[in-house]
């Protein structure tokens, strides 16, 4: 046993370091700043680079630039900063440059409640930038997961050559819990592929059978072009409709064809549940607490916790919807993932939101009351 009490934000930073992140570009913002602060302190020790850029737009740009040199990269922000990163986040999606963007959600909209928790950037994490684009969004519920899932986020980014949004919330970000470092010391670490052909044969955006391109680090002898314009396999801009269609489709497919690998979730008591709670992030903790009490009172209540928020575990929800009286969705927002759950449920069951936007976390009691209303 090698337990250390650590904050969620700190754990995220240490997870990133363990995953091999060696470049951090960011801009401070509550409640995510501790991620940057740990990186500023730790990166030089391992020969990595930390830079506080002039704003979030520049931070996002800097990590993309750094990633193109072959480094694993991270940036961290919260609501307003996440809004500012959107344009360049879209650039990373299209140019297929791996990077992890941490968003520790706080109360919104606008400057809102900078020190209060919320989960109101869930839809923004998928739809925040213009144009159709793929995205992977992962949401931790414990401090330990802040560590382990950051490793996973970095792995997914490198494997699928894509930005991954690590969607935390203020409760988890500032919570301190023990992590047993013996348990997390052997996590798998994935590195992006290197070209296995000579520079002459290399075609940057050709993408093999898996649909994932191999981008050689700048400076290693493979000269190619990267652009945010819609481009062809050679990486050069094109307006030819068939090429455009093909490239856009591949971009989506590289995620959509690998849902089984990308989507993870936790579930409990689904078998003969009358009501299933669907919750993520810190709200899933409230939901678990509620379930503990409800089960103790012999109520058949189950829990489904999406860990991968996007792509959304649609299939699993559909299945649950067919078997229950109601799905109850506690979220610290006005009902966002609930919309997607409703869509997936396709009228098979009621979907009931437990929503709260007053800057306070949802309590187990509030969930219990909602469940009692339908049982």
């Amino acid at each position, binding site marked *: 046993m090698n337990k250390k*009490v650590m904050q969620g934000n700190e754990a995220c930073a240490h997870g990133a370091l363990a995953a091999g992140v060696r470049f951090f570009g960011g801009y401070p913002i509550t409640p995510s700043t501790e991620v940057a602060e740990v990186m500023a302190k730790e990166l030089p020790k391992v020969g990595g680079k930390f830079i506080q850029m002039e704003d979030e737009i520049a931070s996002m740009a800097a990590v993309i630039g750094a990633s193109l040199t072959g480094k694993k990269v991270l940036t961290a922000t919260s609501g307003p900063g996440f809004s500012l990163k959107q344009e360049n986040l879209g650039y990373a999606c299209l140019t297929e440059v791996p990077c992890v963007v941490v968003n520790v959600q706080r109360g919104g909209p606008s400057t809102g409640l*900078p020190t209060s928790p919320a989960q109101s950037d869930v839809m923004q994490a998928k739809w925040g930038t213009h144009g159709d684009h793929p995205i992977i969004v992962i949401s931790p519920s414990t401090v330990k997961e802040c560590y382990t899932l950051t490793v996973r986020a970095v792995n997914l980014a490198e494997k699928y050559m894509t930005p991954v949004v690590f969607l935390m919330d203020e409760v988890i970000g500032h919570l301190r819990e023990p992590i047993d470092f013996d348990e997390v010391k052997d996590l798998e670490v994935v590195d992006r592929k290197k070209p296995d052909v000579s520079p002459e044969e290399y075609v940057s955006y050709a993408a093999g059978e898996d649909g994932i391109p191999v981008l050689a680090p700048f400076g290693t002898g493979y000269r190619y072009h990267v652009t945010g314009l819609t481009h062809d396999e050679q990486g050069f801009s094109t307006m030819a409709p068939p090429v455009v269609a093909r490239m856009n489709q591949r971009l989506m497919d590289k995620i959509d064809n690998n849902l089984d690998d990308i989507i993870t979730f936790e579930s409990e008591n689904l078998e003969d549940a009358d009501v299933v709670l669907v919750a993520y992030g810190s709200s899933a903790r409230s939901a678990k607490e509620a379930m503990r009490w409800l089960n103790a009172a012999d109520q058949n209540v189950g829990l489904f916790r999406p860990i991968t928020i996007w792509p959304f575990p649609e299939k699993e929800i559909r299945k649950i919807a067919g078997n229950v009286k109601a799905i109850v969705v506690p979220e610290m927002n006005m009902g966002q993932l609930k919309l997607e759950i409703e869509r997936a449920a396709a009228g098979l069951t009621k979907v009931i939101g437990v929503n709260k936007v007053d800057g306070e976390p949802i309590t187990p009691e509030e969930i219990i009351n909602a469940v009692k209303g339908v049982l």
Partner: protein
Amino acid sequence: MFEKWDIRLSGTGGQGLILGGIILASAAVKDGFNAVQSQSYGPEARGGASKAEVIISNQEIFYPKIANANTLLAMSQQAYDKYCVDITEDATIIIDSTLVKNIGADKAKKRFIIPITELAKKETGREMTANIVALGAIVGITKVVSEEAIKEAVLERIPAGTEEMNMKALNAGMKAGQELLQTMAS
């Protein structure tokens, strides 16, 4: 048996209560418990009332916030006034009488009044150590964690060079707590 401590440390920004909470949680972990520590901020995490919460339990801790504390430390008048109402029926409440002058708003049956900040100044010459004195008092009174664990935890989290001073503070707090406990028990 399901054992759970809901401890709230309250005062003003700059008193080091969050560090206190972290140390307490760490000590609990050393003792083999589960523990989580959280805090709430004002608009800027500085000034005004500050609070740190620690939950210690022998079971997994899901919901990490405290509604009603069963142990409350109050290290400013404002914090006392604000938080002394959100406690359980049989809560223990520990008050720094150096800073809290009007006492009585709470309905706690177990109320411990200690001049924590004064004690800190007296014992270590630095008010800054009041948070450690307070930790000592909490442990002395509640025994929520072992003396060993709290000592280790304090030593892990304080700046190098201040070990002696902080041990003094901790011991002073524990002693004050234990003494008061005995007085009340007797």
